[in-house]
């Protein structure tokens, strides 16, 4: 497929007796936010490291920008945030960012200016001359984020960008990522937090145990997953509500959070009938809404089904 920013073709990677990624193919289209989803140990980081040319695949090929060049030689056009964050603790923040910019291939002077601007933007200007080790963990993560963005890359590859961030920083980073996509950059990020992916991604791929389970634009995936879903919240008599929800003539499956649930109606199931029954049982409904399936529901259904079919002796490898 041409026009893809990243093309991964039938890639396999094994680590001493254990297959981390198996026959994986995916294409990241230009522009927009692409989510690489999967449970822990699914092979997300391995895939990203192969895309970044940090490790090489045993089989298959990967091309970035349709160029045939290794992504390391294209580092000027790619911003990368690895899952394992690390900085030189003793270096000063501005020096550090300047160095990382240079390592990406931009000139020293321009690296310095851009790093300064980004520090300003994320509220770290006062810390530019401090050593990295003097910064709080949240600030260090911002610095790391800047290092991925400061050279204005066309493609952003972020491995678990929001893990370990507090809600405030998470919000700041999210805004930065969304803005980058709005400016026409392509963003690929991996996560196992479905709510975040659902709100941000245009296109997702779900992988588990090294294999691809779902691939496509988010809206299309939801459509194809099908079924009618109802989101409901009740305020009392939850035992009676649960009895209703386990009636398989009404409900095919339910994702129960105690006081709220997302349920998939049984084939031929009728939301009116479900509503009527729940009202009769006096569960104090505060929400009853016919919805599209959530990504969480799709994820659980797909990954759960895959895990049920799989031999259980695999070693997990992050």
């Amino acid at each position, binding site marked *: 497929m041409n026009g893809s920013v990243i093309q991964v073709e039938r890639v396999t990677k094994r680590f001493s007796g254990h297959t981390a990624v198996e026959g994986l193919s995916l294409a990241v289209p230009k522009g927009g936010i692409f989510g690489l989803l999967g449970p822990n140990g699914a092979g997300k980081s391995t895939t990203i490291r192969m895309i*970044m*040319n*940090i*490790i090489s695949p045993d089989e298959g090929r990967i091309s970035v920008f349709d160029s045939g060049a290794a*992504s*390391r030689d294209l*580092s000027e056009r*790619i911003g*990368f945030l*690895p*899952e*394992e*964050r*690390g*900085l*030189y*603790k*003793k*270096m000063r923040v501005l*020096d550090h960012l300047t*160095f*990382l910019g*240079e*390592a*990406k*291939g931009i*000139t*020293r002077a321009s690296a310095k200016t851009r790093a300064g601007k980004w520090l300003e933007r994320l509220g770290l200007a006062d810390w530019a001359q401090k050593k990295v080790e003097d910064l709080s963990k949240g600030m260090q993560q911002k610095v*790391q984020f800047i*290092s991925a963005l400061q050279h204005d890359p066309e493609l952003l590859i972020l491995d678990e960008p929001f893990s370990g961030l507090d809600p405030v920083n998470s919000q700041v980073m999210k805004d930065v990522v969304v803005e980058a996509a709005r400016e026409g950059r392509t963003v690929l990020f991996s996560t196992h937090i479905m709510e975040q992916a659902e709100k941000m991604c245009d296109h997702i791929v779900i992988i588990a145990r090294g294999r691809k389970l779902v691939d496509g634009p988010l809206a299309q995936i939801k459509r194809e997953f099908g079924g009618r879903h109802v989101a409901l919240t009740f305020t009392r008599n939850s035992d009676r509500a649960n009895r209703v929800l386990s009636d398989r003539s009404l409900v095919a499956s339910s994702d129960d959070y105690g006081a709220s649930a997302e349920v998939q109606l049984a084939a031929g199931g009728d939301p009116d009938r479900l509503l009527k029954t729940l009202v009769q049982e006096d569960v104090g409904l505060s929400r009853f809404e016919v919805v599209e399936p959530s990504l969480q529901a799709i994820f659980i259904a797909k990954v759960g089904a895959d895990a049920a079919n799989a031999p259980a002796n695999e070693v997990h490898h992050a």
Partner: protein
Amino acid sequence: MHKIWAVIRREFIEKVRTRAFILATILGPVFFGVLAIVPGYLMSRDTGIKRVAVVDATTTEFGNRVAAALTAARRGRGAAAPPRFEVTHVAAAGREVAVRDSLVKQTGLSEKQAAGFEGLLLVSDSSLVTGRVHYLGNNVGSFDDMREIESVVRPVIVSERLERIGVNPGEAMKSMQGIDLVTAKVADGRLTGESGAATFLLAYAMGIILYIALLIYGQQIMGAIVEEKTSRIVEVLASSLTPFQMMLGKVIGVGAVALLQIGIWTGAATLFSTYKDQILTALGATATGPLPLSLPSMQPDLFLVFLIFFALGFLFFAALYAAVGAMCNTIQDAGQAQMPVMMMVIAGFFSIFALIRDPNGTAARVLSYVPPLAPFVVPMRYSISPLSAVSLSAAILTTVLGVLVVVWLAGRIYRVGILMYGKKASFGEVFRWIRAA
């Protein structure tokens, strides 16, 4: 190329900025200064005149002569120099034991008690036959004092003996003057004006500089790589730099730091030894004359050879240290895994001591072509007697080849190793990395 410069600059600047570097660079010269100045200063300050009683049990003039010789001894040269001893001559023929015992009571007392002696020198007629003179004192541990007393007493005894057998002591002394083998080094058909001893000193100094640089900075490279692995910064770097760029940048950057530090140290050492007397005078102490060994001058060609082999040796061992660092995940692991590399460095260093007696022998010639040892052996040989152009180029060529092989191997180990977390790699695994990468 631009990226490698960035790595080199980062290594250099960050290292030079560390407190450890600044401290070591300043303390080095202070240490040399103390070494060069303090002994001279202390010696010149030590003007205390030693009070010595000569217990004279002789029946001839011999005892008087010994006392006179001690009185005439001066500290330093020239007539104006202060006397060394304050001599009390006690005639004690026939009752020397009683005199000795009574004087011992006044000897070795604390300085506050003014009356008394530092020591007693017992001379008797038999001293001339046995050559034995007794000294009882509180300063018998002072090498200087004992040497001085001995050197004063010996000629008195010798000339006394000569006179007794009817020989003119003056003539005899003249004819017994020892011979001196005065050495001077010839290089390239020219006299260099250096003594052989000074040349040895230079050969050792070059070996020590390389040895210290390798041990200190090689281990620093290793530690820094382990740290990059544990802090995971290596992930970010590996996405934009090739492992080879990372490794070479580190080795060259740290190498430049080593050269800077050694340059400062050598400069300071040279300054201190050159201006030692001026500094002593400024401190109010008398100058003590030149050092027993003058610092040898370094010919430009030798300096060039030294620099070439310093650079090659540094590359060779630093690449090995980098590979060891990449294999390990903790400093403790690295400390063990570096042993083979360290043994090679030590072997190189000691080969200097083994070969310096026969710098052109078969062993020395063969070892000049062994890459890990050549950086130590070749400059040492060259400083003593220059190698022919052919054997010098051959030695450089084999060392360069060795460096290329080692850098290539280390690069492959590094490439795989830096992304391997978990346990330390076994040598079997490392071998697989080299083949697979």
